[in-house]
Each structure stands twice: as structure tokens, then as C-alpha cells.
């Protein structure tokens, strides 16, 4: 099992947790994305996740929980840079933990028609950014 599949398994476990709130899920998610570029998109009736190595996984989650995760990220982006993003989408940067070099670029859309999220390590931070991921292929 490679590290990418381990990461997606870890994410599935995180989202399936029955004892943590949306706020705590977001905090944990930001910690995990320091190592891998992560993309999420609501497709049909499921959340599809993709990690930097190209591995993909469907994550069982209520749509409203995913939308709440996106809303929480919007609030965090605006706390760091006022009016950086709208609740319905945008791009922002978050610093993770005590190390100001560890920054994560957050790009998201949270409308009734579309919900997606991309988390990537910011240029100049401890981890280099990865190439964009195609959630739909190759299969």
C-alpha cells in the first residue's frame, strides 16, 4: 500500500468519525493536507476525493456536512484575510499550526449547484505544491 492510498484511507476514517464536529474535521483536514494536494468534489450523491498521487476514493458523507466544511474554511480564510472569499467560493491561504511557513492554499465553490474543494501546499512553504488533479480520470 502506497502513502497516497494510506492518506485517502485516513481521510475516509476522518470523515466517518462519529465523535468529532465539523469544526474539528476541518482542523484535522488542514493538518493532513500538509503532505498531499487534496481535491474533493460532490458528484451526484457522493463525495469524491483525490490525492496528489492520483488515487481516488468515494467518501461516505452527508452533503450538508461537506457544505458545512466548506463554510468553515471560508470563515477561516476571512479571519486571516478579511473578505478574502465569499461563503459561496473563492481562494484563500491558511497558515497551519505554529509554523508560519506551513501554509495551505484553499480553493472552493459552495453553491447549491456545485460543491468542490482543493487544498494545496502554498509556494514557499515546507512542502512543494503538486499538479492539479483530474477527479474523473484516468480510471
Amino acid at each position: 500500500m502506497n502513502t497516497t492510498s494510506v492518506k485517502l484511507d485516513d481521510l475516509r476514517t476522518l470523515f466517518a468519525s462519529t465523535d468529532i464536529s465539523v469544526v474539528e474535521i476541518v482542523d484535522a483536514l488542514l493538518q493532513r493536507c500538509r503532505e498531499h494536494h487534496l481535491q474533493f468534489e460532490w458528484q451526484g450523491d457522493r463525495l469524491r476525493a483525490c490525492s496528489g498521487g492520483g488515487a481516488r476514493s468515494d467518501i461516505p458523507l452527508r452533503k450538508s456536512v461537506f457544505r458545512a466544511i466548506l463554510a468553515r474554511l471560508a470563515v477561516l480564510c476571512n479571519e486571516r484575510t478579511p473578505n478574502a472569499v465569499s461563503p459561496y467560493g473563492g481562494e484563500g491561504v491558511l497558515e497551519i499550526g505554529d509554523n508560519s511557513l506551513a501554509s495551505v492554499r484553499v480553493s472552493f465553490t459552495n453553491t447549491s449547484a456545485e460543491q468542490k474543494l482543493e487544498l494545496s501546499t502554498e509556494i514557499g512553504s515546507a512542502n512543494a505544491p503538486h499538479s492539479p488533479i483530474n477527479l474523473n480520470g484516468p480510471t
Partner: protein
Amino acid sequence: MIVVLHGTTRLRAESICKRGPDPDFIEPGGGVCAEGFSTCLASGPFPLGTPQEYARRKAETFPNEGGPVILLVEVPEELIAKAVEDVCFPLSQGVIQFDEGAGLEELCTAWVPLSKQILAVEGV
């Protein structure tokens, strides 16, 4: 009773007031149903943003809907409990998400006699 808030446009607030939350509501130009009804405690906290912010953004996106307002509803505690039983949305974080199977049906059934107000969002 617990007071919850929903940030939206005046047109939508008036419709919700009369008929209750509509999980089949589709925004103009959109193609997907609302599915749930997102609210927050009037007392906060607001970890997902304030209802005023949501109201303003919706009003900007839909400028022909009468401007931003807050729909205030007094909801019985037992209905709130249906929505917060999922640990993802603990009451301590102020988010009350009514979804199918998580309080939405019960809220719609109880809707008509509930006390409601539409409050203008100031500073617009």
C-alpha cells in the same frame, strides 16, 4: 423554545414564512434542490459565518429578491434535538442543520404555528 436564524433574501424569507422550509427549492439559474434548511443559534457562536453574511451574499447574487433579511424562528427544543443529534453539528457550535431524517420533516410539520419574524439586515 430556541431562537434560530436563517440568512436569506426577503422574497425567500416570505415564502419560507408562509409555507415552511422547502427541500425541493431550486435557486434561479440552479439545478439542484436545497435539500435541507440551514440555521444557527441566535446566540451564536458562528463557526460557519453569520446569518447576516449569508443574507448579504444571497442578496448580492439575487438582486431582484428584495434585499438581505434574517428569518427568525422560535423552534421547540425537541425539534432542535432532532437536528443536532448528529455529532457533526453539536449545539455548542451553534449550527442547526435540518436535513431529511434529521429534523427537517418534523420542523415542516410543526411549522405553521411557530413564531417567526423577518428582520432587515442593517448596513446595506
